[in-house]
């Protein structure tokens, strides 16, 4: 019976609409994220085109603000987060030897909410008046009293995304805690599973806080409350405290799964076990715990008391310790390995180096007195793009190349993969590195036009942006080509690959895997 059952796939649109299969849902998450990458990326191209030279050439200042706002929201909530949920869906059951996610119907629902959430958000562009134009951090009162009418749609969209994320993370936690194969103790789980377990707890802790803050906005805007309205006795700074209590763990939600992916890939291509497995787990957990006590480092200029500024400075600096441990462990994993540099490894090594550069600028900004100079300049723009683009996005690229053969049964085109890597690597640095200089020289962020002395570096950044944006079409081509055919992948795919998905499942992984739990020694 199990033989017929094994690869029976539903057909037609119903396969996707009503899917309860972790692999199909994972695929949908990944495609959704990919489409959003091009929409959010298109907005970035508009931003960089306007900033190519001083003066206003292409768009109005208000539309520019709509672009920066939607670019940020789409990239954070529509690209990085769904991509990681896609990886979790595909990989967590295969890595822990489970047949599927624990709550498959909820899995379907948490995906299908997303197109509606982002449909709502993007529809604001076509409404009369302005789309949300107050930055992805939507500080009150710019987003409340002064927000455009479409802000209420934005609030509804954020609520939907939050519901989706909470359901997705409950699913991950229940799956990991209940469905591990016999013998797979917590400290034997692959690091990717560990990082996602911790990420899921972060999501459950902070998504309700985001829901709370947008609900307060909603009642301030429509029902006469004054949570954030000073003239009604409210407090605009409280908005920032509540937002960043969500927002700082959120940035680790976007990076911890990348740490997991990199920790899977480096040992494979070093042909050597991950160095310091348990310290990796403890470091990830420490970063997650610290993320709850550092939020106000985003707000050094709001006029906190000295004691507050000192506390948040010291707590933030502490994060460098576990993050350093991770970087040292990856380096030690490579040390005296037997290294090869296929595309996933190239992206992973680039991740370690470029993410660390983002970490250094983060450390510089943790120092309150000098952050007064960096705050709200292009220096912070450079910083978070180093950690989110050459960090999270590069890890997503690395993971996609690494597991595509397992997912599709076909090898991707290695030559094209390397072309994608090298052009991305050069252009992303031409794009973001000059932003450090712009910020230090005094260019504020979120401005549609700038003084003449900022021209040269802005032109460089724009050219880098056009190349980096354009080359992602090659990635789309590589993925489609790999799905449609190519050299057959072996079951193990990579010589040094370890883990249940490579050791116990064929390539492509069957529609239903591990109907009988494997034994883990």
């Amino acid at each position, binding site marked *: 019976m199990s033989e017929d059952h094994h690869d029976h796939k539903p057909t037609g649109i119903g396969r996707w609409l009503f899917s309860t299969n972790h692999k199909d849902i994972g695929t949908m998450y990944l495609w959704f994220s990919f489409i959003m990458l091009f929409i959010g990326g298109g907005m970035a191209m508009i931003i960089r085109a306007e900033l190519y030279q001083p003066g206003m050439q292409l768009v109005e200042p208000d539309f520019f603000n709509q672009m920066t706002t939607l670019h940020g929201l789409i990239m954070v909530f529509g690209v990085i987060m769904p991509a990681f949920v896609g990886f979790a869906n595909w990989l967590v059951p295969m890595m822990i030897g489970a047949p599927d996610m624990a709550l498959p119907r909820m899995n379907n629902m948490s995906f299908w909410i997303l197109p509606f959430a982002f449909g709502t958000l993007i529809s604001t562009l076509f409404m009369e008046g302005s789309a949300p134009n107050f930055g992805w951090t939507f500080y009150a009162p710019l987003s409340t009293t002064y927000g455009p009418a479409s802000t209420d749609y934005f609030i509804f969209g954020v609520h939907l995304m939050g519901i989706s994320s909470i359901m997705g993370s409950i699913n991950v936690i229940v799956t990991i805690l209940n469905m591990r194969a016999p013998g797979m103790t917590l400290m034997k789980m692959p690091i990717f599973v560990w990082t996602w377990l911790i990420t899921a707890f972060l999501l459950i802790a902070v998504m309700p806080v985001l829901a709370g803050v947008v609900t307060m906005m909603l009642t301030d805007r429509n029902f006469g409350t004054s949570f954030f309205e000073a003239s009604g006795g*409210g407090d605009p700074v409280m908005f920032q405290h509540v937002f960043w209590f969500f927002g700082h763990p959120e940035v680790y939600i976007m990076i911890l799964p990348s740490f997991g992916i990199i920790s899977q890939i480096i040992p494979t291509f070093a042909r050597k076990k991950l160095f310091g497995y348990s310290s990796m787990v403890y470091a990830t957990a420490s970063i997650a715990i610290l993320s709850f006590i550092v939020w106000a480092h985003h707000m050094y200029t709001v006029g906190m008391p000295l004691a507050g500024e000192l506390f948040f400075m010291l707590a933030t600096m502490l994060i460098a310790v576990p993050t350093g441990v991770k970087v040292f462990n990856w380096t030690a994993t490579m040390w005296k390995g037997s290294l090869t540099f296929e595309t996933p490894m190239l992206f992973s090594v680039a991740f370690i180096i470029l993410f660390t550069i983002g970490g250094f600028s983060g450390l510089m900004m943790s120092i309150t007195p000098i952050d007064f*100079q960096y705050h709200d300049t292009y220096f912070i723009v450079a910083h978070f793009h180093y950690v989110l683009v050459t960090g999270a996005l590069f890890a997503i690229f690395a993971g996609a190349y690494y597991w595509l053969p397992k997912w599709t049964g076909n090898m991707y085109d290695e030559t094209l993969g390397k072309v994608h890597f090298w052009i991305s690597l050069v252009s992303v640095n031409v794009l973001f590195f000059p932003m450090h200089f712009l910020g230090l020289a005094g260019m504020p962020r979120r401005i549609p036009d700038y003084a003449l002395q900022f021209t040269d570096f802005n032109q460089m950044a724009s050219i880098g942006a056009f190349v980096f944006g354009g080359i992602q079409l090659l990635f789309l081509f590589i993925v489609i080509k790999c799905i449609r055919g190519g050299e057959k992948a072996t079951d193990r795919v990579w010589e040094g690959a370890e883990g249940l998905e490579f050791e116990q499942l064929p390539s492509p992984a069957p529609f239903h895997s591990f109907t009988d739990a494997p034994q883990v020694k």
Partner: protein
Amino acid sequence: MSVLLRTFKVLSLMFVSTELFAAAQMDLTPGVTAISQEVYELHTLILWICVIIGAGVFGVIFYSMFAHRKSKGAVAANFHDNMTVEVLWTVIPFLILIGMAIPAAKTLIKMESPADDAEVTIKITGYQWKWNYDYMHEGFSFFSNLAQSNRDVINSKNPKDREGINYLLDVDNRMVLPVGKKVRFLMTSNDVIHSWWIPAFAVKKDAIPGYINEAHTTVPKVGVYRGQCAELCGKDHGFMPIVVEVKSEADYAAWVAEKKGAAMAAAASDSKVWSQDELMAKGEAVYNASCAACHGPTGDGVPGVFPAMKGSAIATGNLAAHLDIVINGSKVNPAMAAYGAQMSDADLAAVITYERNAFGNNTGDAVQPADVKAARK
């Protein structure tokens, strides 16, 4: 093609020499105050610590990538744990961090020290999209807008127009400070959050509605210092620069006297009767500084967002309704602020006259300061 060449030139200059690249600033400014110098030194110290650690770690990675390649016959070693190094690379970074935290805390404590001994106090109020500087002990205040010379060329197709005018960094009325005196700034806002920043003083503080934030500086050098609003505050966030002119004590005193005189003259102009031409000329200036950002220099507005002036029901209809919305603001749209609190009777009379008779509006009304005064009740 020339664009590519230029980019290549810029790129190569970066690697060849930073001196050749002096035209574009790449590092933080050391500034002119004692605090800004200290901030700069702290920045440099921490940057170099990062560079050295980075060089070490990346050096190991690159060496490993070069020496431990499979293609060179490298065979993987078997180690995957080492308590000693793991403890070391936890403890050493911790100690380095303590080394950074001590000087950082010292500088921070200086920056946040109270400014009760300040000799000049200026209340800075952020507005969409201009600053108000209130010299609290001298009894005058004024608005500081983007200079008209800058505003005129924002949409210009000819890049040459933007040269030589401190594009986007020039204002109509500068803040003026006395050299060498301790100055206290009190920051607040009338609408959304703004942030007042002069890099050369290392002063950046948010201007938040309902809050009064404090900062202080002592500028030891006469000169003109420029900065910009640093917190997204809406459409024209990029167009509200900050210019501070630091003058010698005598020049500062003369400037204060002149400003006090101007305040008295403004009060006098509220009680005189103006001709239509005088009102229109003054009104155009006021309109361009305060109204054109939303309603457009030609009165066209932004469809769906900011209403047009041209042919509008208010600007061509009942004068009482026009006075009401300008003086008291809009009840439905907070973007239309209550200008009664920001402008003198004469300014309001002039700008309302201008709106009713420009852009093809043709009411023929000449609104006098006395009319505004009556409408304020």
